[in-house]
């Protein structure tokens, strides 16, 4: 017999181990949440996902409440609505204006939810400004305290997923902030620059520096292209966030983001190389024209046709003079499967040799 509980009056089945939030979402209920991440232990700190459980006097955080047999859960009623409106109104008094969130960092879930629950936006802004620590000279990650809601997704990710614990909640009360030990630059901590903090941040408080500096399109106008990382053999799935209008229409990879948790193999995680080390794409050292070695022994630019012709003749000449097995074809584990297929076919079918291998054949 499967176990059930009552959700807004309906009897629904429970998947073993799930939370009320997970169950309700599975059933199509919209419950706001900000501090929740399936990879992290539930802390119920953002208070956005509160629901009513029959017989429990206080509202409970659905993320941290187990879906238990026989309980009766209400996810929407006047009390919950009033709570959501007031809570988001409070958040809005202590955060930047919605108009300021339309930049290249991920769109603010906070502001979107505030709009969705129709939270009042007219409450007086907090006079006291949040403490912003001095600029950190690391080139990737920026922390903007005025957008932070202290949901601690970043610090918990750093501890629970990365096991690095380079950042922490620091201070207390309204002065609480996200800090490193002794407020040092991330470069001088145990931080491995994986950028998970940027990825999990629901408000754009933790954000990537480069696109901000480049003044590209706001994040909502970037096109996400799902692809596979080009570094190690894990094959992380990632999204190129492309600004098609930049670079004379060639397009610019404004940033790389990870898909949601649950997408394999990386479950929403990326490492420093995957998430950040993409600036080589537009590096000035990129080869842009074919080169051939001239009479003086120097490389000079030439046309594609000329380069292809010289290459073909050169290879054919060696094969003719020394036999096909005097040629070696070095393929690349960095290139695609199709390209590797073509190299071995070139070697075998066009030149007739099995002298083909790739750089990391072990």
């Amino acid at each position, binding site marked *: 017999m499967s176990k059930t509980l009552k959700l807004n009056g309906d009897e629904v089945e429970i998947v073993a181990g799930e939370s009320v939030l997970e169950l309700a979402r599975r059933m199509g209920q919209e419950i706001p949440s900000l501090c929740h991440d399936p990879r992290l232990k539930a802390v119920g700190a953002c208070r956005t996902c*509160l629901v009513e459980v029959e017989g429990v006097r206080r509202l409970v955080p659905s993320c941290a409440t187990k879906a238990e047999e026989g309980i009766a859960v209400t996810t929407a009623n006047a009390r919950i609505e009033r*709570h959501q409106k007031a809570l988001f109104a*409070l*958040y809005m008094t202590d955060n930047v204006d919605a108009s300021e969130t339309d930049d290249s960092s991920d769109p603010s879930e906070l502001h979107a939810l505030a709009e969705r629950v129709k939270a009042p936006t007219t409450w007086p802004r907090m006079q006291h400004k949040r403490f912003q620590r001095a600029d950190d000279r690391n080139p990737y990650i920026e922390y903007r305290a005025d957008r932070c809601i202290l949901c601690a997704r970043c610090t918990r990710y750093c501890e629970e997923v990365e096991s690095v614990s380079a950042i922490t*909640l620091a201070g207390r009360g309204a002065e609480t902030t996200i800090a490193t030990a002794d407020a040092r630059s991330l470069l001088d901590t145990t931080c491995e620059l994986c950028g998970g903090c940027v990825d999990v941040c629901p408000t754009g408080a933790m954000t990537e520096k480069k696109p901000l500096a480049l003044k590209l399109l706001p994040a909502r106008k970037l096109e996400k292209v799902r692809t596979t990382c080009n570094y190690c053999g894990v094959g992380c799935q990632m999204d190129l966030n492309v600004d098609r209008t930049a670079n004379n229409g060639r397009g610019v990879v404004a940033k790389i983001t990870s898909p949601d948790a649950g997408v394999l193999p990386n479950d929403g995680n990326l490492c420093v190389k995957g998430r950040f080390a993409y600036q080589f794409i537009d590096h000035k050292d990129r080869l842009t024209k074919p080169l051939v070695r001239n009479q003086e022994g120097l490389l000079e630019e030439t046309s594609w046709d000329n380069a292809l012709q010289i290459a073909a003749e050169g290879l054919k000449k060696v094969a003719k003079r020394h036999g096909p097995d005097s040629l070696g074809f070095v393929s690349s584990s960095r290139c695609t499967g199709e390209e590797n297929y073509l190299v071995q076919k070139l070697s075998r079918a066009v030149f007739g040799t099995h002298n083909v291998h790739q750089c990391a054949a072990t």
Partner: protein
Amino acid sequence: MAANDKREQLLGALHKAGGLTPGAAAKVSAELGVPEAQVYGAGSFYHLLGDSETKLRVCTGLSCAMRGGRKLLALAQDADMPVAECSCLAACDRAPALLKDRSVLVDVTQENVKSAGGDWRNVQGAELADDWNGRVGSNNSELPMNLGGTPSFSGEAFAKAQSIGADEVIAAIDESGLQGRGGAGFPAAIKWGGVRAQEAKPHYVVLNADEGEPGTFKDRELMLRRPDLVLEGLAIAAFCLGAQDVYLYLRGEFTGPWIALEKAIASFSENKLFEGVSFHLHSGHGAYICGEETALLEALEGKRGMPRLKPPFPHENGLWGKPTLIQNVETIACVPAIVLQGGAWFKAMGATEPGTKLYSISGDVKEPGTYELPLGSTLDDVAAAAGGYVGELLAFSPGGASSGFLPASERKRALDFAALSKIGSMLGSAGVVVMNTESDIRELVREQLIFFENESCGQCAPCRIGTRYLREALDRDLQGKPSEQSLGEVAEVAWEMNEGSICGLGQAAALPLTSALQHFPGAFGGEKRK
């Protein structure tokens, strides 16, 4: 999760290192194997660790504020001393108080600050020894706690508990109707039984001696004068629950009580009593929220003192994830008498609810102090025990900041858990502060709001943002802004703080303002009274 001896030492190690000076976190991290940022994050939570530059802290708790605490602060600031304000130091009966390094100075005068010549080290208050005592009622051996009596290290109650067994002890506590004296009033017998029923081992016993509610200083007095009752009560609890380790968490400013407890432990030990029970004294480092039981557990574990979600409750998932009994000092101190004299005897001592209660009273009364009276005594009763009112009664706060303000018309109301709860207030820790008509209620509300703003742990938004929002709203009112601009959303914010906050601090933090608005509406709007 196994007990982590090293993590447990974190806050103590930081204290030893002189607080969070640059490099201290790295040093402690290397010593304990805890990531540096976690050391830093934990330390920065506690004002006595996080701000090691500040050497003087002037109490601006309600009673001290009424006695010129802010003036002392201004004088010290003018003299360029490394000074800051701080929350209640549990010395309300000797206001104003200040903290010099980690020593509490009381009855501090403006002259004391002025004559220091700009050097914080020279600031003095009234001379106090380790055993500084406040006023208490006279010796009466009929009283369960009898603060005026002398300690006994005979272990009589413990011996009786051993002979009648745990079931009988818990039955007696149940019969006594003993409610938690820390503020929530939860029946003690249910907690004991709850821990006892847990299969997971070991069980822990924790003493909550992090007294910090403005107006409250009864636990201080109890530990100073009757540490025997506290320790014997703990030993009985450990016996009943099969616990070996007993943690005593004292606020960091309680040097005197710490020494009194250490001496008492030695005395019992000389008498070969409580063998097999280990008492571990832990010091707090300046965080009122650690009086919240789950925040206290976090602090004991060497973490930031942020309350946990409940459920699970500590009786099933407490210290290091193990079943844990947490009791307030006064609650545990009632246990020896209950064991010796029986539950019915204790219950009959009360006026409207079971037992006697320690009322700390301060502010505008003649003899501020701690008085053991029947639970359910009225303000007039308590004030009479304290030598009577000074001036004409305007308002009072019956049980700390979280109980808000009540008007003089409530002077005949029983100060117990039920009667106060009925009118939206609470008995709390029964730290009664009396205000006469010389006081500006708005200024006093502001002090309470600042208290909550400073002591919010910051974990959840309703409390973190709400406490500051309310204080800023009141500031607008004090600046003479029209009330729709200043106090317009206060009711809604207060409602949300109560509905949305994780712990009792946030849930009650709006009460000083909302209760004052309810009972003293005329005090708001308009120019500041000077």
